[in-house]
């Protein structure tokens, strides 16, 4: 019962996180120039890498979204998602500390939000959620062999013997 409930919450969180990644990726792919401009304004990458990064990153976000929903890849996708979101939070945090005034580019040009401590906290919170999902999606620990051995013969004994 508890396990079912736990599983339902995990799925809900995975779907929500996948939705966030899809919502973040699509506007970037639809308006790559705007996103490339946002990336360039962070001043973290050499100019030659800005264009390719502006295309590859949203593709990665879509793949992570897909991975979160595909059974064998859920844990890995959540871990990659954690790294991505943690990276976004660090990139935005350093721009705040350096006093650079820029658009966050988090959801492409769809949300014209400036980088603020709120956007940093949002990314950090999502990274935490993604990390928790990765941890919670790990395979259950195998039962110790002696426990299996001691229970099986009893189960196989005919009734009344």
């Amino acid at each position: 019962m508890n396990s079912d409930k736990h599983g339902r919450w995990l799925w809900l969180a995975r779907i929500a996180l996948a939705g966030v990644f899809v919502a973040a990726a699509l506007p970037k792919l639809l308006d790559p120039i705007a996103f490339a401009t946002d990336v360039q304004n962070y001043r973290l990458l050499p100019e030659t890498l800005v264009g390719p990064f502006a295309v590859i990153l949203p593709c990665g976000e879509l793949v992570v979204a897909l991975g979160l929903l595909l059974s064998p890849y859920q844990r890995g996708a959540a871990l990659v998602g954690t790294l991505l979101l943690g990276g976004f939070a660090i990139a935005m945090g350093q721009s705040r500390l350096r006093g650079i005034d820029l658009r966050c580019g988090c959801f492409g040009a769809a949300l014209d939000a400036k980088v603020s401590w709120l956007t940093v906290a949002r990314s950090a919170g999502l990274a935490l959620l993604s990390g928790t999902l990765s941890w919670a999606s790990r395979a259950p620990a195998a039962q110790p062999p002696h426990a299996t051995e001691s229970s099986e013969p009893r189960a196989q004994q005919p009734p009344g013997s």
Partner: protein
Amino acid sequence: MLGPAGMTLLNQVLRICAVSLAVGLVVLAVRGAPRPGPVGGEPAVCSAPAAAEPATPWITLDDAHKLSADPGLLFVDCRPRAEFRTGHIAAALSVPSDESEIRDDVVSRLRSARTIIAYCDARSGCASSVRLASRLRELGIADVRILTGGLPAWLEKGYPAQSGSCPLCPDDKP
């Protein structure tokens, strides 16, 4: 060493990264790499014109004021020298954007700053600041930002300003 669960996780992560890279490269090959352009992001008060350089970040008045205590920061006034003398941000360097050349000693002074905040009178979408920022980047000075709203907005906030000549300028000693 990683256990079996760790190896499985690493395997998943590597696969996801490889697929992401492959998909990204295909999209890149089909559509080409986007070139950053002046699309959005600029403040309404002093929005950049279509011909603006794309890479110049803007800085808000409050952030600029907070940074002004930093010794590595240099305010650069892009207006004509006569306008500079009537009033400018305290300790700013006058580098009029309408002058064709920037003197070598001024360039040396600019290079010694860690961060430069260019400002002007905010007319024509801060065109003077954008123009000067572009020239400074051509000189290899990377960290140049443009003050949102320029000098009028700075004065309106009551932040420190002064009038007179430019003590920092090699060609304008009092």
